[in-house]
């Protein structure tokens, strides 16, 4: 098993005729993901590498049974694209696009929530249930099926961790990149609970970074609700205060969000906190 997506998940790619949308739609299809449709307003009726293109998400739901959407449209159009997907009955919306105005994502998330849809991202690499479905821009070949769930605020750092796991023979049930923006969809707590509930996940790797207090909140949640072992790495211990480190998320602000506080909270919650990503596989094997 896995969380959120599996081999039956039917994906529609919003923005399939853009450069990134087209490239990753093909990659996902190649991985084995059921990419059933693409959306590109004005290009309905055409075909993108064997994937039928529609003008509206509604058509992809009605005609192809799409239930999950991945969004590559340019940032100014993300709000509308998320709302369109939620309105059309899509239940999981993965937003890859970066640079989305915060007030746009607040509105889109609020709307999607009211329509019963979950969002992952924006500014995230997507998610993968290895061997079943890849919905994102992750390199599928570094993953392998298994029983470790991965949650991460960072892209390449996730690959680094996963690569270490896979090299050590530790497969992943699902790996989710939640994105680094100040306001995002599914976050640590939501996903920790899903992995806790997933019978085929035995352990959870959580990769955090400085900025915000999501890791501290996650630590409190782990203490209260998570019985599976959690392994954690937090990036940014040496980052200077009040500096942006790539994402907007990585800001130390208001005495909250420093790596030290996060590490302390996670350790106190019983999570296994590591100094370098490479330590994780050995720790998992030990337990």
């Amino acid at each position, binding site marked *: 098993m896995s969380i959120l997506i599996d081999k039956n998940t039917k994906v529609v790619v919003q923005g399939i005729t853009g450069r990134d949308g087209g490239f990753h739609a093909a990659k996902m299809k190649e991985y084995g993901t059921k990419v059933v449709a693409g959306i590109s307003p004005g290009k309905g009726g055409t075909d993108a590498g064997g994937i039928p293109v529609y003008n509206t998400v509604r058509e992809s739901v009605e005609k192809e049974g799409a239930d999950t959407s991945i969004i590559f449209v340019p940032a100014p159009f993300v709000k509308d694209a998320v709302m369109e997907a939620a309105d059309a009955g899509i239940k999981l919306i993965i937003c890859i696009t970066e640079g989305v105005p915060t007030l746009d994502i*607040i509105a889109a998330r609020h709307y999607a929530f009211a329509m019963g849809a979950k969002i992952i991202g924006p500014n995230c690499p997507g998610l993968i249930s290895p061997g079943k479905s890849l919905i994102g821009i992750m390199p599928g070949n570094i993953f392998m099926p298994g029983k470790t769930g991965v949650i*991460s605020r960072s*892209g390449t750092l996730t*690959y680094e961790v996963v690569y270490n796991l896979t090299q050590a023979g530790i497969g992943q049930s699902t790996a989710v990149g939640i994105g680094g923006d100040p306001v995002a969809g599914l976050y640590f707590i939501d996903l920790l609970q899903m992995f806790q509930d997933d019978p085929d996940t035995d352990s959870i790797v959580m990769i955090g970074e400085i900025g915000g207090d999501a890791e501290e909140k996650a630590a409190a949640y782990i203490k209260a609700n998570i019985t599976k072992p959690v392994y954690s790495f937090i990036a940014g211990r040496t980052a200077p205060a009040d500096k942006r480190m790539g*994402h907007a998320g990585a800001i130390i602000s208001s005495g909250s969000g420093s790596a030290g506080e996060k590490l302390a909270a996670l350790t106190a919650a019983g999570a296994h906190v590591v100094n*370098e990503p490479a330590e994780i596989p050995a720790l998992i094997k030990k337990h």
Partner: protein
Amino acid sequence: MKIHEYQGKELFDQWGITTVSGAVCRSVDEALNAYDHLGLSRAVVKAQVLTGGRGKAGGVKIAKNREELALIAASILGMDIKGYIVDRILVAAAVDIAAEYYFSFVVDRNAKSVVMIMSRDGGVEIEEVAAKNPERIHKIPIFPFVGVPDFLARKAASILFDDWNHIVQAKEMIKKLYRLMVDTDASLVEINPLVISKSGELLALDAKINFDDNAMYRRPEIEKLFEPTPEEEKELDAKAKGFSFVQLQGEIGCMVNGAGLAMATMDLIKLYGGTPANFLDIGGSSNPNKVVEAMKLLLSDTDVKVVLINIFGGITRCDDVARGLLTAFNQIKTDIPIVIRLTGTNEKEGRELLLGTPFHTAETMGEAIKKAVELSARNHVIVHQA
């Protein structure tokens, strides 16, 4: 994106939020002219720097008369506040304050919405109030599609004030302030202190506004208010080239793909006893031009003793990355030792391509960083010997 208080107050004026008129001055003479021109008696002089804690640092003072103004202006101009040199001050009428309050709209990560934050304990560091007396801070989340209707503004105003006249003034101000936030894509609009003057008027005595960088494409009139520091200029230049760059004070220049991996690289450098010279995320492509530009950026820092290139090849394969690096380094001549770590898809092919080059290569992140730290220490010794 941050702007100065005086710029924030200009926006307040435009959106109809009552504040205190003043003048921005870059010299004592300008300050004295402003004093005369505005017909002031008691005046407040405020350092205009893009950081908090001005008051504590002595950057905000009251002048009782013209003579005192000259002295105070002279003392504040040129002051160093948390590394920011004061090059301009705001001179404005000093208000007879009856009471001070705190009010802000801010994007809240946990509420995943904009929240209104208010407190009757204004004029002080609100973080301290939050830590010691959290019950004195009130937060009201805003539904994005609903915004701030009358009742919500009235509710917030009546949390802050008891007097109906003050509530009515605050209600109007709160609605305008939210309008300003939405119209300009601000991520923070803060008034501290918000005051009631002795004559019963509600006044925004400060204006702190941050904007959402991601939204500036649709707010050109706001974007042009931005005044980057020389350091920020460098970061912006990098951004224009597709990098995310932050200058630091260490010796190991880093070039990494991905922000999280870049931060982890810095962390491990420190862990192994070295010092990172920068944060540099070059993003996801293998374009040799990008590598050339990144190397130029790193080598422009004379403190850099070693360059560490840490690339995880995902969608972009390691052999393509290696080819890109080779092309790039045909154009760059440097004596600085370079450590390259390539992992991920086609990593063996990638590393083979680098065999026989002057680059130090490594398989794991730990190995690469150990080598870079070692080289930087050795290089150190060489420099000292020379």
